[in-house]
Every structure is written in C-alpha cells, then in structure tokens.
C-alpha cells in the first residue's frame, strides 16, 4: 500500500509530454550517413584501428541489407535516416562527480528523479545524456571487487582485451540490418563486467535520454557476468516529444557464464515519433540464469525481441515484457528463446495493452535444437484491448527438433468489460480511474518484479495514458 500512496504523490505530467533542455553539444556530424561519417566518429573517439575496420565492415553490411518487410511499417524510415545526425557528442569528458555535471543536464536529471535515486543509495548511477556518458559514479566497494561499470567507450579504452574478446560476438554485425547500422555508428552505452563469484546486491543503474531533434541514438551495451556471479542492471529511458521522426537502434550483448545469474530491467518511454529498433541478446552457459524484464511505452514503432540463447546444460532464460500501444503506435515485441543444450528451461510472459487505434503484436520464437533433451519452454501472452478500435496480433514461431522436449504456448485476449467498469464505478471510481485500475491489475504480475520506483513510475504513466481513454 505505501507503493500506491507514492503513485498519488508523484507529479510526472511533464514526463508524459517531454521536456527539452537547450542543447550544449560540442561536436556533431552532418545529417545522413556515409563512410566518411563513420571514419569521423571513430577518429573522434580515438579508437583503435580494429574498431574502425569493424565499423566500416558493418556499414557495408548495413548498406547491402534490405529494409525488413516484416514486423512494423518501416516505409518512412529510409527518408528519416537521411535526416538524422548519426553522432552527437555533448561534452568532452566523462564526468566523475555530480558537482561537475552541467546545470542544464542536472535539471533534466532532476526531472527524471535521479537525485532521489542517489539519495536512496541505489548506487552506481551511470547517466547517459545524448550519445555519451557524462556522469558516472561507481561504488568503491564494487571497484574493490573488480566490478567494471563504465561507458562503452571507456570499456574499449581501459579494458581492450576483454572488450575485443566479446564485442560483436553475441550480436554479430550481420545479424540484421539494424544491428549492422548500430555496429557502424554506435556511441554511448554501458560496459559491465562482474568477475567470478561476485554477488552484487544493489542494481547497476543507467539512465539515458535522447535530447536532440533528429538525432539518432545508437547505444551499445556489453555485459559480461563471469562464473557464479550475480548482478542486476537497470536502465530507463524517456524522450521528449518532437514533431519530426526520430530513431533509436541499440544493441545489447550479454554473456552469462556457468552458474551465473543476471537480470536486465528496462522501461522505455519513447516520444511518439520514435522508431525504436533494438537487438538485445544474451548467451547463457551451464546452469546460468538470464532474466529480461522489458517495458515498452511510447514510440511510433518498436520492434524488440529480447533473446536468450541457452547454450549450456541446465541454462534458464526468462523474458517478461509489457508493451503499451497508444494511438498511432505499434509495439511489435516479444521474445526469442533458443534451446541448444540438454535440460534447458525458458519462460516468456508477455503482456500488451492497446488503446484507441494502437496496435500491439506479440512475435516470439521458441527453438529447440535436436539433442536438447529434457528442455522445457512455456510462453504466455496476454493482450488487453481498451477500445473497439484497438488491435492485437500474435505471431508465435515454434521450431522443435527434439521429441523429448516440452513446449507450451498460451495466448489470451481480453477487453475491459462493461461489467467490470460498472462494478468499479459503483464503488465510486470514475470511468478513467476504473480503467487505470483494471490495466494496473493486468500488468501487476510483471510490475511487481520491478524495483519500487520503476513500478510507481510505470503505474503513473499508465494512469496518464488512461486519461482521455473514455468516450
């Protein structure tokens, strides 16, 4: 119940509509993309030659691959990509202490609630502003345990061996057109390394935010959880609302070694003109556990399917996601699990809400390789439709090449019922309050997995979204 009290106290109205700070970048490329831009980015970042070559190769792959014709409508995207700036650098250095962070950026962070997070000693806040880390703090105790929590650029600079060993191995350049694009122009993101046997009790948190019109955000994150280590990484995004199209295409690579345990939590609330095309994948070794907790709000089109490749015996993958499609939005989300070893287990729980003419699609793949005996997978996707015009689709792909494996799939579609609304109104709730309560109940199984502030934020966002949903 204290949780609910917090909901009432929060004023996130501005959050919904977005806010814009005056831009203070010191360097940016010209709009559009070609080889010289890629070279410029790499040079600007003072990267080793292998990374430049990696980027150039990726650019060629990107240019050679056609736009996907499945998923959402990408017909406007080509034109959008000619308009955006592929690299924007806000400041010269990565900041270490809060005092050094410029005031206008602080203002943005305050409105995102970061100081509170600090006060709560949530620790290790690495905040990304525009394309790069500007603020970064890492707890002493973690340093002493050998944990690395850096910007991706610093990861490359300061830990070249481990970086080169893993970078681009989980999501190869040619995985898809947008992983290739990201590989060519990536900038910003996190590098996390948790050494063998280290258990982190407090989550690693990164906030980032896109703050410039027509700017693409190509964050790249690489996370390595060594044998027997435990960690939780949290990332939240919000974006201000602009009138022209915007684009975000991240790549997240995660390695979960033997007996390790890792959770990646993200709530994204993009502005309604954003294309959000993300590739996030984890490789899980023997008896390791990977959990994706994924919330997608906003954007014009999101295509995002967190994946678990279960490579070692007994590995477990879990994907829990919430998608909210408001008017004019398409959330094409779901998950992928690949069972490539014996006794691997996975579960996908996907919940979507569609309002007005919003559309949510569940797209999921469950693949069981021959020889992955004793493997079990369970998929549950539930869709809630708010209005008559709302739409939901389910595209489950199931490929099972092993007879001694169990795969379950269950899908439900429900509507907010008239009787439910009448019941709640009879208890004194307005129609909007009633609607928000039903929706909150619907997402509760996933929201309860979130850290408190995120659950509160999510509930509040849902309440705001339900405003004007009636009639």
């Amino acid at each position, binding site marked *: 119940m204290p949780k609910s*009290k917090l909901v*009432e106290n929060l004023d996130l109205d501005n959050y919904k509509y977005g806010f814009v700070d005056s831009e203070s970048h010191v360097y940016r490329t010209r709009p559009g993309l070609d080889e010289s831009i890629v070279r410029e980015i790499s040079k600007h970042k003072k990267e080793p030659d292998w990374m430049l070559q990696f980027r150039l190769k990726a650019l060629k792959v990107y240019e050679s691959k056609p736009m996907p014709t499945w998923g959402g409508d990408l017909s406007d995207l080509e034109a959008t990509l000619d308009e955006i700036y592929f690299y924007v650098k806000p400041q010269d250095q990565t900041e270490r202490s809060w005092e050094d962070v410029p005031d206008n950026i602080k203002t943005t962070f305050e409105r995102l609630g970061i100081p509170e997070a600090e006060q709560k000693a949530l620790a290790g806040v690495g905040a990304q502003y525009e394309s790069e880390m500007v603020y970064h703090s890492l707890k002493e105790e973690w340093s002493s345990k050998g944990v690395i929590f850096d910007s991706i650029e610093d990861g490359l600079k300061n830990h070249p061996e481990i970086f080169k060993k893993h970078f681009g191995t989980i999501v190869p350049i040619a995985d898809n057109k947008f992983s290739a694009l990201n590989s060519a122009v990536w900038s910003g993101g996190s590098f996390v390394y948790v050494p063998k046997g280290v258990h982190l009790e407090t989550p690693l948190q990164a906030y980032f935010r896109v703050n410039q019109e027509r700017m693409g955000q190509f964050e790249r994150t690489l996370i390595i959880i060594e044998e027997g280590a435990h960690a939780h990484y949290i990332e939240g995004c919000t974006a201000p609302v602009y009138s022209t199209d915007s684009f975000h295409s991240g790549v997240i690579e995660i390695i979960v070694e033997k007996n390790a345990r890792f959770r990646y939590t993200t709530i994204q609330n993009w502005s309604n003109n954003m294309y959000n095309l993300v590739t996030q994948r984890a490789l899980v070794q023997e008896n390791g556990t990977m959990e994706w907790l994924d919330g997608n709000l906003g954007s014009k089109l999101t295509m995002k399917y967190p994946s678990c490749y279960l490579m070692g015996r007994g590995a477990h993958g879990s994907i829990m996601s919430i998608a909210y499609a408001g008017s004019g939005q398409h959330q094409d989300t779901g998950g992928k699990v690949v069972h490539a070893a014996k006794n691997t287990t996975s579960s996908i729980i996907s919940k979507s809400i569609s309002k007005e003419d919003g559309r949510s699609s569940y797209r999921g793949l469950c693949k069981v390789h021959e020889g992955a005996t004793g493997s079990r997978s369970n998929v549950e996707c539930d869709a809630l439709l708010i209005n008559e015009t709302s739409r939901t689709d389910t595209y489950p792909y199931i490929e099972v090449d092993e007879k001694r494996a169990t795969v379950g799939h269950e899908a439900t579609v429900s509507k907010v019922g008239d009787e439910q609304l009448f019941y*709640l109104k*009879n208890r*004194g709730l307005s129609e909007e309050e009633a609607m928000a309560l039903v929706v909150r109940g619907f997402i*509760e199984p996933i929201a309860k997995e979130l850290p408190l502030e995120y659950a509160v934020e999510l509930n509040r966002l849902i309440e705001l979204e339900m405003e004007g949903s009636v009639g």
Partner: protein
Amino acid sequence: MSNTPALEIRGLSAKVADEDISILNNLDLTLESGQIHAIMGPNGSGKSTLAKVLAGHPSYQVTGGEVLYLGQSILEMEPDERALAGIFMAFQYPVEIPGVSIANFLRTALQARLGRGEELDLFDFQDQLLESMELLEVEPSFAERPVNDGFSGGEKKRNEILQMAVLQPTLAIMDETDSGLDIDALQIVSKGVNTLQQQNPEMTILMITHYQRLLDYIKPDLVHVMVDGKIVRTGGPELALELERQGYADWKIPS
C-alpha cells in the same frame, strides 16, 4: 431533514436499453431513513433490475417516473456519482478484477471519496480495514487477494459486505446477497450487516431476496412483494413467512 425519505421511488418504469422489453412498470416504493426493507418475488419479477437501475447500470433505460435519494433526483447521475453520494450495491454476481488487491481497491475507492488534494490517511485506513475484516471473520491476508479472482461464491459475497463495511454507504442495496451462501456464511454476513446498521442507524438497507431465510437473520421493517415489475403487496416480516408457506404462485398475474 429527518422527514426526507432515504429513497423515494415514484412511478418508476424501465426497460432493457437495446430492446423493447419493459421490466419495471410504474413502481412505487419509499424507504425512510434508517429502515430495512426486503423485496421478495418470483424469478423474473424485476427485483435485480430494480437494484441495477437504482445503481445506474447502463444496460437499462428509465422510461418514466422518478427516483429521489434524500430528496434529490438521481436518475441523471452517473453510477460513480451515485456511489460518491452514498449509494452502494452489493452485487449478486460480483465481478473479478485480476491483479488488484482488495486493499488497493478499497483504498482507491476511499481516496475517490476525498476531495482533490486530500490524502487518505493510510494508518486509519488500515485500522478500518482490519476492523471490518474481523467483523466479516476473514483473515487479514484476505485483503491482499485480487478482487473476487478465484473466490468461492461465499467469499465473493463476504467481500461485498466487507466493501460495504469499509465504504459505509447511506443507502445499501443488497442484491440476493444470500444466494450461494451456506448457513454459516449467511450468519456471518448477516451479523456484519446488523452490526453496521447498529453502528450507523441512519444506514438504510434495501434487501432483494428470493428466500425468506435471510430475513431470519436481518429483520426487515417492511417486506414487499414484487411481481411483473411493480410492488403488489407490502407488509411486516410476517408476510415473508406467509410467502414461504404459500410460494409465489398466488401472485403470478396471468398474462
């Protein structure tokens, strides 16, 4: 003020909203403040429709007459406005709200009763909820269960009266609260209702029931017999006993 009836229904007629099926026909009924009335009648006589019309259910359309609550017409009011004014209905078939705990639900409902900027005192709420749960003889963990989701019939009915206890309405309409209750649960629920009425003698209760059994536990001031959408006879509690003996057969109006 004390002379103003809690509920005054004058010549009320209503039909199913989408169809031309008339269910309430020129019904008159008055409940003085603090009274308990029972409406009995055969299946299909319009008892439950009356309850829903009073609560403002959108499936029904009022075609004539007037309903005054504490002297004010309520027919133009939304269901939530009626609720905030103090009208409560205990549902015959309570609705499931998955993922929303009873505590959260009731807290939201009480918060809705406060003005903007006013904050519900969570400690008071907690005390009130625990007290009400004790009255209805449910475990404290009951409040953490999702509203009616996976409840037995008896639990659903108990939950209705629990909500009534917490929300403290001025006018409570109980729609076949006794159906689906075993004798033990019926006693607990009845005790709860009686206690609430003792605590708040202004609380007016309209009970809709098919059976006399409930009236052994909650003593009505008046019993009405409803047939074909109107009240055909009114009497004291003895009328219920008479119905129990004779059934409704005598009251059916040949069509």
